[in-house]
């Protein structure tokens, strides 16, 4: 149903019967790696073009963005000079080519607002978002898988009911509502607002860093957990109906062993798919949550740059988001191969 499905390893052409298993596996893997990488690069190029065009549709340009109303006071000569400086007058393909050429040389351009290189801006913002996303994902997976397993272990009972209620509200409450409510409760009831201090890096002040990230991560993690819970529950119930589970029970294995080793292991494939999809959703969610909790991450950088018409920064940030998404898709496929021997042809 997703990009994941279409990027699943393509079945390689059937090799001659006498080929040895090991060689076959090696060749399939090589082919799979090539296809996956090409697909990823292709997607990124396409995204780059789309982003470039969408941003060029924005009204106004760098001159009006940096000078505001006073842009109207510029003499035609000044206008021409600035046009030349920003490269505004050039045809779009030329502008795109300059940008693309820069990327290939590891140069994402300069921020017209701050004067810093886009690479350095992203370099400081990315770790924040990455840490937030990973922490949220961990929270979401723990919440989701635990409640999903509990729900599937006793359908219709209390565990199931509470798990389903959690999923219903986790999916129904937008992350900005959870975030806004958390901020309101923390600051008003507990007079606690860790984000009021300037952001602390993971290595410079781990404890403050944890305090600043745990609530935004919780905000995002609840939504992820809700989606993962539903998938886990559904997949576990599906697998439980299969014959091998019945025989596992029949030969007298403990309930924990049946659920943990037989049912959950086989339910992991849809759970992996859902987690991959949720990670993409998470990347979008960081934009909003970073805004609420005032975290200097990639999402905040993106919103500010779009508002300030700082094209190079907006393009760079979006491209990094898209690259993250593509990477997660590839990672999902790798995890498939690790947990499902059938994919490893």
């Amino acid at each position, binding site marked *: 149903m997703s990009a994941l499905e279409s990027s699943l390893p393509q079945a390689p052409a059937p090799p001659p019967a006498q080929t040895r298993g090991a060689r076959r596996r090696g060749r399939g893997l090589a082919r799979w790696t090539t296809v996956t990488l090409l697909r990823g690069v292709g997607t990124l190029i396409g995204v780059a073009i789309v982003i470039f065009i969408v941003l060029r549709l924005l009204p106004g340009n760098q001159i009006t963005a940096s000078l505001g109303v006073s842009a109207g006071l510029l003499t035609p000569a000044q206008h021409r000079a600035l046009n030349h400086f920003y490269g505004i007058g050039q045809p779009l393909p030329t502008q795109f080519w300059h940008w693309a050429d820069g990327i290939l040389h590891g140069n994402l351009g300069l921020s017209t607002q701050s004067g810093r290189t886009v690479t350095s801006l992203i370099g400081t913002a990315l770790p924040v978002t990455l840490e937030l996303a990973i922490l949220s994902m961990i929270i979401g997976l723990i919440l989701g898988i635990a409640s999903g397993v509990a729900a599937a272990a006793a359908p219709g009972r209390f565990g199931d009911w509470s798990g389903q209620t959690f999923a219903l509200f986790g999916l129904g409450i937008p992350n900005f509502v959870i975030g806004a409510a958390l901020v*309101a409760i923390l600051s008003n009831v507990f007079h606690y607002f860790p984000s009021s201090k300037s952001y602390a890096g993971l290595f410079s002040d781990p404890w403050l860093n944890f305090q600043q990230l745990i609530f935004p991560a919780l905000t995002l993690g609840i939504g992820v957990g809700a989606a993962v819970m539903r998938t886990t529950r559904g997949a576990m119930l599906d697998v439980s109906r299969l014959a091998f589970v019945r025989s596992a029970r029949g030969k007298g294995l403990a309930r924990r062993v049946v659920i943990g080793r037989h049912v959950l292991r086989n339910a992991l494939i849809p759970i992996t798919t859902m987690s991959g999809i949720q990670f993409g959703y998470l990347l979008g969610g960081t934009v909003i949550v970073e805004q609420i909790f005032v975290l200097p991450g990639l999402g905040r950088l993106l919103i500010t740059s*779009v508002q300030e018409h700082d094209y190079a920064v907006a393009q760079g940030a979006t491209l990094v988001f898209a690259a993250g998404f593509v990477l997660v898709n590839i990672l999902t496929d790798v995890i498939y191969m690790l947990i499902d021997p059938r994919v490893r042809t």
Partner: protein
Amino acid sequence: MSVSVGTPQPAFDPVASAQSSRRSIARRLWARGNGRAGLIIVVVMVLLGLVSLIGVQPHGPNDQDVYHALKGPSGTHLFGTDSYGRDVFSRVQHGIVLSLEISVIAVAICTVIGTLAGVAAGYLGGVVSAVLMGSADLLFAVPSILLALAIVTALGPGTLDSALAIGIGYAPIFARVVRGPVLSVREADYVKAGAVLGFSRRRVLFRHILPAVSGVLAVQITLALGWAILTEASLSFLGLGPPPPASSLGLMVSEGTNFARTAWWNLAFPAAAIVALIIGFNLLGDALRDVFDPTSGRD
């Protein structure tokens, strides 16, 4: 829409079966707990919003009364008042209308674009399919909120612009969801028979293939309404929705956070309205899925 006389009756006519089962779909929906809950929530919320259009609301949504600013819920102001002394209940009503208006247009856009693309990709296959599904993959690689963000910034905030931004972001999902069933129906005997009988492509497409995806589509539309409301609220929370004084629900939540300590009702009621709308459509969509696809993994 009766089948014209003289047309050979296929063994399975999805049009006829869809019609005869329409009443039983409603009944099966109502028989399910989630379907009933979803239906009730959605109907109540929609009515709450719509009656304000014919003047059934306690106050004007933009009537200011600074002497009664930030007053708690009372008989005259059911949900209290905001910092300008405007009635929060009336503003929530107005917000529901705005939210529904944008979401319905957005979902209409993505349904039309997505379904056309999905049917074309599934039915025609080949290059058309590769190009369409390739573009869908591309749009998928940009988080939809980012896409909406860029489009809204490009077009400027407003009802139609938000709707367009949200609609484009979700069109790929419809394309994907529709393409699958079209692929399998294309090979079904009754569709092949239609082609053999010399029916025009258009007739096969609209009379035989589209009805077969209507179930999937109904589920997807309902769920998409929930997403659209969520995205619209997120956009307006970021200040990219309809500009003030329009009482967009997301904007009300964002303003409400400033007064959360002294006037919780400014935050709680708009937030509750958003949550109720989303949960209502989600429940309804889940129930519809259960009704159309009994094998969808639920016990």
